[in-house]
């Protein structure tokens, strides 16, 4: 747009440049932090946390107030971002104050106060959320500057829990957590990714301190930071908040049941729709499937989150009448519909980043998604479905995600597989290990019939059939592309490994029909594909499909490597050789079998046809750090095979 309307970014800069004008009143704690002798860090560490001090006070009314002071030293130009501090709040929480200061290397001091802060919506994807972020930026952000922030924050009234997150993207030199409880209140501290420490008790306050906490390193395909970082979850108990807090996952389930009470009540219109969609004449499984599909495809995803609405679903009737809702709204409405046909179902809370929750995670509310577990009728037991969880008491539970409209009934999105979810029943909450699909459920089967011409041109047809996770991933791309965009993307992808490529045709089938396999047909011509070398013609039998993953072999690996899901990819390429040429040499077959996967390939020659077949199989999506050497070997083997060349010779 030409109009020089002030964009948010421009405004941000403008606000920063005019603020702040007050005299600096740098507190003693920040002066003390700035005077600490500098420690040595790796040269890619952008900033270090000199001090992270948190005091949590529980008032007898149940109000939770946090006072936090945090000081950083900027070590690199890239670390200047720590001079901006963002703090979330919404209608039910409050920032009592937020201040910031900085001390430059030259000793200049700056201060930024509440009035210098600005606010913005914390997220953008939802239609509306009342979660906002207050941001304060302090001046003087140069390498060597020490910046500090202090704030007081009033917590959410119905979550009697606090978390001390003492490990993040920057190393922490010293961190302290102090807890003050009124008489009659108790706490429980649970440690995550760190050994438990006992607090020091003094004057009614409990204090934990830690020093020299390393940062979470960035590595290709590692799990999310929350799955690796150390933290302590503190849960509070008192007779005054009985039934409003939780000691176990079971309690957490009860707590959630109270919160969501009544939301599954059907309306007459919803009941009528169930009758219309899933009449009793259908088989029980068909009825379930039909209702699941309605929730998945006909209820549009739209999130409206206000205060407690981030946790409590809207009523099933409202979601049905609006035909939109977020994950918990969709799951709740589906639960209400299923109950109309006598099928029990249970809400399941999950975190979409695998690894944040495990069987050892203490009860805490870091979930970001809700799905549903549907109790399948006995008659459906003959139907093999990768998304079925065998519960010892509840029997076969189909784990279904009505929010993801690209994953068919019976399957689960890859990010929920091998993950943990909190199953919420009338008996409370129960952490369950969600099922993982077999490699055979997530296939890419690629077949090609190709012809090589004497000048090195390769042309022919390719068919790719995708199932399970592989179909889902391709559909997520295709569903947002026009036919022209799809063609461009395929040309770009093939053009990376073939010279002078031309895509003659392309056709994707079942992009919208998620129950069917996703099938892609294309025809291409690639000039100069095979290289003439005197009487020889050099041809790479692995025509398309690169399977080597990204792994930095120059640095020791710290964390596990994560694939999306188990997978099985098979390629079968037949290349008709040009007349007058015969095979002079073929590459050796590749064969690797490791604890997490297999790779085999073979090149044969029959008549004038070169046949390349290979199978790539991942059986376990998480490779522990101690097995990274194996993974490296696995990728190396694939790389060698993918580059291998068959030598053809011109007959005299």
């Amino acid at each position, binding site marked *: 747009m030409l109009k020089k309307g002030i964009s948010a970014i421009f405004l941000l800069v403008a606000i920063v440049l005019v603020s702040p004008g007050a005299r600096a009143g740098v507190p003693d704690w920040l002066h003390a932090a700035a005077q600490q002798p500098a420690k040595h860090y790796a040269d890619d560490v952008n900033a270090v946390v000199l001090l992270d001090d948190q005091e949590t006070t529980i008032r007898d009314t149940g109000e939770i107030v946090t006072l936090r002071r945090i000081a950083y030293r900027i070590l690199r130009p890239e670390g200047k971002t720590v001079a901006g501090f963002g703090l979330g709040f919404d209608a039910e929480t409050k920032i009592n104050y937020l201040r910031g200061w900085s001390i430059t290397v030259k000793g200049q001091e700056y201060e930024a106060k509440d009035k*210098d802060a600005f606010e913005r919506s914390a997220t953008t994807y939802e239609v509306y959320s009342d979660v906002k972020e207050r941001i304060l930026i302090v001046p003087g952000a140069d390498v060597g500057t020490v910046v500090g922030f202090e704030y007081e924050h009033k917590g959410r009234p119905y979550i009697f829990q606090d978390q001390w997150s003492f490990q993040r993207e920057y190393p922490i030199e010293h961190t302290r957590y102090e807890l003050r409880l009124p008489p009659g209140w108790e706490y429980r501290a649970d440690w995550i990714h760190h050994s438990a420490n006992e607090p020091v008790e003094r004057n009614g306050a409990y204090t934990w301190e830690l020093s020299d906490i390393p940062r979470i390193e960035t590595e290709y395909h590692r799990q999310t930071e929350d799955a690796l970082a150390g933290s302590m979850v503190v849960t509070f108990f008192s007779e005054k908040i009985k039934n409003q807090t939780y000691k176990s996952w079971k309690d957490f389930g009860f707590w959630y049941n109270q919160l969501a009470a009544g939301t599954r009540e059907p309306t007459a219109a919803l009941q009528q729709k169930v009758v219309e969609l899933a009449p009793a004449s259908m088989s029980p499984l068909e009825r379930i499937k039909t209702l699941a599909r309605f929730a998945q495809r006909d209820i549009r995803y739209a999130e409206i989150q206000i205060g407690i609405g981030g946790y409590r679903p809207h009523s099933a009737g409202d979601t049905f009448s609006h035909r939109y809702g977020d994950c918990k709204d969709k799951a709740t409405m589906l639960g209400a519909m299923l109950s109309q046909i006598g099928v029990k179902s249970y809400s399941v809370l999950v975190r979409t980043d695998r690894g944040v929750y495990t069987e050892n995670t203490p009860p805490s509310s870091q979930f970001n998604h809700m799905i549903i577990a549907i109790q399948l009728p006995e008659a459906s037991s003959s139907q093999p479905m990768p998304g079925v969880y065998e519960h010892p008491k509840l029997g076969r539970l189909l784990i279904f995600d009505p929010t993801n409209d690209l994953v068919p009934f019976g399957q689960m999105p890859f990010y929920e597989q091998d993950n943990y979810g909190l199953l919420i029943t009338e008996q409370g909450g129960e952490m369950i290990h969600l099922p993982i699909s077999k490699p055979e459920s997530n296939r890419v089967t690629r077949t090609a019939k190709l012809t090589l011409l004497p000048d090195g041109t390769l042309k022919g047809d390719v068919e790719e059939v995708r199932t399970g996770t592989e179909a889902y991933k391709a559909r997520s791309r295709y569903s947002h592309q026009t036919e022209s965009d799809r063609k461009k993307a395929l040309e770009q992808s093939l053009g990376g490994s073939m010279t002078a490529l031309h895509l003659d045709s392309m056709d994707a089938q079942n992009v919208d029909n998620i129950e069917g396999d996703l099938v892609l047909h294309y025809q291409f011509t690639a000039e100069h594909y095979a290289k003439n070398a005197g009487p020889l013609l050099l041809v790479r039998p692995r025509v398309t499909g690169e399977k080597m993953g990204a792994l930095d072999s120059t640095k020791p690996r710290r964390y596990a490597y994560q694939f999306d899901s188990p997978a099985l990819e098979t390629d079968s390429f037949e290349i008709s050789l040009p007349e007058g040429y015969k095979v002079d040499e073929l590459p050796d077959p590749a064969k690797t079998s490791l604890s997490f996967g297999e790779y085999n390939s073979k090149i044969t020659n029959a008549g004038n046809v070169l046949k390349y077949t290979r199978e790539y199989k991942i059986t376990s999506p998480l490779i522990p750090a101690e097995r990274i050497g194996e993974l490296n070997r696995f990728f190396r083997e694939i790389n060698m095979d993918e580059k291998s060349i068959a030598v053809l010779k011109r007959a005299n």
Partner: protein
Amino acid sequence: MRRRLLVFLCFYLPSVCLAVPDQKQAQGWLPVTQQDWAIKEVPYNPGAPAIQLYLRYYKDDNDNFISVYKRIKVLRDAGKKYADIAIEIEPGQSLKQLMARTLHPDGSIVDFQGKPFEKTIIKGRGIKYLAKTFTMPDVTVGSIVEYMYTVELPRRLVDPISEWPVQSELFTVKENLRFRPYQGLVIVPTEWGTEAPRSRVAYSYLHQSDPRVPQKKAGNLMELELENVPAFDGEALMPPEADYKPVIVFYYGGRETASPELFWQEWRRLFAEYLDKFVGDYGEIRSLAADLTRNESDSEKKLRKLYVRAQQIRNLSFERARTAEELKKEGLKHNTNVREVLEHGYGTSNDIDRLFVALARGAGFDASILHVSERSQRSFSELLLWLGQVDDEAVLVNAGGKDTVLDPGTKYCPYGLLRWKNTSATAFRLSKSGAAFVKTPAPPSPTVRRTARMSLAPDGSAKGEITMEWAGEESLERRIEALDTDEAGRRKSLEDELVAWLPHGGTAKLQSSEGWQETEKPLIARFTVEVPGFAAVTGKRILSPAYFFSPFQQGAFTPLSRRYPIVLPYPFVEQDEFTLTLPEGYSVEVAPYRRKAGLSYAGYEIASSQQGNELTVKRVLHLDRMRFETGEYQQLKDFFAIVQAGDGEHAVLQSAAAAAAQKEQ
């Protein structure tokens, strides 16, 4: 962006408005036709998620409102996102008269009955930018969503520029665009101090794709109706999209808006007056210029000395932006003339360019400031009466009858060079004489030299050393980028760049780099590299790539044809020498072919030679232009097919045993 011009701030004086029917009031929903319901695909773009059936946009500066009506049909699941609406509300504006509804093919209609939410885009220091958000009920594939609203604009203030949303992200079947300017007097800067101030409204229509033009209707209403406006569909390596998208803008201004000539002439006069004051004619500047150029008779050498002195000024434009408080504490003051620039020893890019003008004039040269456009975002159009087009400054100096464009205000910019975005661009010359518009020179071809010495092992892996050398634009842009990082950051950036060129699985470690603080010399980096699986090994042969680097052009020429020209930032020259030491016991069975291709504006050659157990491949690729019209695409595609084939050549090495066996045969 080095300099932002405040175009003009306008507010109007009370005046009598013309009587115009109240067009702010919604005219009610339009009927939905059978044709609308029948649409299943967007013309010429199958698979598009949605289609905009109707758009009405009406901005009225006289009655202070914007009225919008949109009707969108959802064609696919991905198009349901158009049911989530966000209406941006700027400070002083308020949302009025919102109506929205969803229509279904069976005739059912679901009205939106809620209230929109208020989402904070940004709020602070008395400024509040909001979005009013809501979502439409009961939307499925095949639904039509439509909504209309009115945004009330602040009184006593009008936007200096108003733009019509001619092209949106969806194909639009029909659109109706209206604008009614304020009927009274708008205060504009060019009329300040004049005895009889006048304000007027002009408009520009660029990249017109339809013969229809805005029509003036009763009540000074400007209106345009368009049909079948496609969404913009760009291509890789195309010129800036802004050069093709239709733009219709209205501006308030003074007498200068009567014609583009007058507009640029008037602003040229105003800027020239301002700059004359800034540059001035100071004795100390003249004296410095004389000192610097003493004993030098060659004009260019004189200018170079002045250029070096100007670049010695600390360039604040390439440092972090500072608050007023920081400037005060650090004792940094705003320069109001070139004497202060020299005295303070610091300044912005513009201050440094202006100091150079003063020095050059002091040494007797004819020098003037240029306001230069940036071709990276849009090409300059004289018809567009918008000063934001010429946002950067440079210097035009005449030495020995030859005009030279220089930019000492860009840190690390060598004498004679401009940043590529300012090359081949229209510039606005600010001097009392000479043409108002000049074209900046085309960028020279920077050379990238890559030298690799690698040893090949019998298992096909290779390791060795690579030296890379960047000159001209290539080194300038890298140096400027490096200002935002440190040595570790520069190392990572260089290693990442090299690894991206290496065959899959290759690793690189930077051993040394030099020239980061230089202006004229090239930037040089030396690496050690390892590439497992570099060559393919068969029973009796090793098949080694003849060339080391993946060309950037890979995949760029796959489409059969193009709709838009190809534009590169600048022409380039790649000079590579790759020496491969063969593994012991291997000899060359077939050397890589020599390939050569040439066009009037491009050349390529790759050839190998062998000495002892070393195979050396030399390659040169140059593209002497940066813009290629669509008619030249096939020629360029064919050229790069040869480049790619040459770069993909292999050397066939054979073991001694195989060679002996072959000999026996």
